[in-house]
């Protein structure tokens, strides 16, 4: 008991430290790197929502970009129709993605392992083809540009999201709420049931839990949060395009999570940071950075299945114990 209290206090302190550093970033970092940091936290949050499904529930989805894109399109459509409340806009993104995830998840959670991955890949691509071909609504392959981005209006005080600093701070505050929700969720009894589904679904079914329902709930929440990330990403990029839904985009949270470590709460976000920093460093030298990404991933998958952050945490723990 005292031990877990200590861990909690430790974690609380670390969370606070991380948040403080991230909140201070706009005052320290040059604008260029701040924009990259914005992308890192949005994609990191996307990866963390994916990890609710992968790391906690044990389901590897290759179609999360579908829900990310639904969130982006809902956000973009609302802005195009002149809605100015950011709360409303992002909520629509979440709701749209929740609904899509509920319907698609209902079909997907019947199967697991490789079948689940293939089915989610298929449905993700189905959403992609819809976005690509339903030109009247989605603008086809050009996507929906956002000509005006609503400003933040808070108690008579107004700032523009065109300023990268405010865009960053806005994303950071929305994402912090999302991360808190994820943290609460994974530490709740429901979070424990998710882990139980991952570890041994037969035994869980024996003791009376409805495995399909648990998986569907996890799938729906992960989809909704992916929609939130997508909505932010649309604001950040000033557009929503079908590329956001393509399966190569779905592979990003997967790669980030594996790089960072799926067993650690912040592992996926850490992976996202490595992903984008590597991308920046390598694309300075060559266009073909995927070669390096592939070459970097192969040894991680083979030798460090816990990911980079996961391996570091493991080493620290072992040192403390000895």
């Amino acid at each position: 008991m005292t031990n877990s209290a200590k861990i909690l206090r430790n974690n609380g302190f670390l969370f606070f430290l991380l948040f403080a550093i991230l909140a201070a970033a706009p005052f320290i970092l040059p604008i260029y790197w701040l924009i990259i940091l914005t992308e890192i936290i949005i994609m990191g949050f996307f990866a963390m929502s994916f990890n609710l499904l992968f790391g906690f529930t044990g389901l590897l989805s290759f179609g999360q970009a579908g829900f990310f894109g639904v969130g982006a399109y809902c956000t973009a459509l609302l802005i195009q129709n002149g809605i100015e409340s950011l709360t409303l806009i992002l909520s629509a993104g979440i709701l749209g993605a929740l609904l899509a995830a509920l319907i698609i998840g209902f079909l997907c959670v019947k199967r697991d392992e490789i079948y689940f991955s293939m089915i989610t890949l298929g449905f993700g691509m189905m959403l992609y083809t819809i976005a690509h071909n339903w030109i009247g609504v989605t603008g086809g392959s050009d996507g929906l540009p956002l000509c005006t981005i609503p400003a933040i209006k808070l108690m008579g005080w107004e700032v523009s999201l065109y300023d990268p600093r405010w865009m960053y701070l806005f994303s950071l505050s929305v994402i912090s709420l999302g991360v808190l929700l994820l943290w609460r969720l994974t530490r709740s009894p429901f979070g424990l049931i998710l882990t139980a589904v991952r570890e041994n679904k037969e035994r869980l079914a024996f003791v009376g839990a409805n495995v399909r329902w648990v998986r569907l709930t996890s799938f729906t929440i992960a989809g909704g949060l992916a929609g939130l990330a997508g909505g932010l990403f649309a604001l950040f990029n000033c557009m929503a395009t079908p590329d956001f839904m393509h399966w190569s985009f779905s592979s990003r949270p997967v790669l980030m999570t594996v790089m960072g470590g799926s067993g650690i709460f912040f592992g996926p976000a850490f992976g996202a940071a490595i992903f984008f920093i590597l991308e920046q460093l390598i694309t300075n030298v060559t266009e073909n950075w995927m070669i390096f990404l592939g070459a970097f991933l192969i040894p991680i998958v083979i030798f460090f299945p816990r990911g980079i952050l996961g391996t570091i945490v493991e080493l620290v723990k072992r040192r403390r114990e000895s």
Partner: protein
Amino acid sequence: METFAANLLNGLSWGMLLFLISVGLTTVFGVLGVLNFAHGSFFMLGAYLCMQIMHIVPSFWVGIIVGPLLVGGLGVVIEKMLLRKIYDRDISFQLLLTFAILLFLDDSVRLIWGPGYHVVEAPAILAGTIPFFDHTYPIYRLFLVVIGPLIGLALWSFFHFTRWGKVVRAAAVDREMAEGVGIRVPLLFTAVFAFGSWLAALGGALAAPHQSLAPAMGERIIIESFIVVVIGGMGSFPGAFAGALLLGLLDSFGTAFAGRAQMALPFILLAVVLLFRPQGFFGRET
């Protein structure tokens, strides 16, 4: 009548290419238990290597023989050095490893041959067109429609009548039992993976005169062959054949009748099959 026949032939020729890819994918899955994301990259490498060899020796037939063999060799290296280390791991790691290989190979192709399109000329006998109702039809597509079933028949005979083929099927049914009766499973795994890579590359080389080569050609076909393998039943040879034909025809007739919505048809088919027959047409109960 003419449009119908043209659609039928178009669908069959694309279906035959899909079949060559899917049969390798499904065999590798059946025996090794690994679903290979990089399979489409082998297909692409087959096409590009065929083209490259034709620059050195200007013969399509040399390209189509040597190119796939090189890719088969690459398959041996990948299986022995990489895949072998993770057979006992969770299935998601295998998927991720082959995905990392895909990233590496696809971008390597882009680096070596550039992001643009390339064209491979069909050999003289198969180039050109023949009269077809009031119009003409490319001979090469007819060649694909004929060669596909021939290769399929050869593969089927191999699996059913040769000792090696039977060993492969035995290992697909029960790996441990196969090991128990003295089959050298590690060797078999390498052989099957190399065989699958060779088949994919052969499909790529055959596809080369049929479509233009671009670094994205592997991506399109891997998604479609995943669908083929899932709806046909994972690990099933007849399933791969039926699924590939169905998807090929869906492609050509879908484009004719559904227009832009055609792109979504394979995924709708996937959803319907999974709802009513989750193990696929020829799959075993899981």
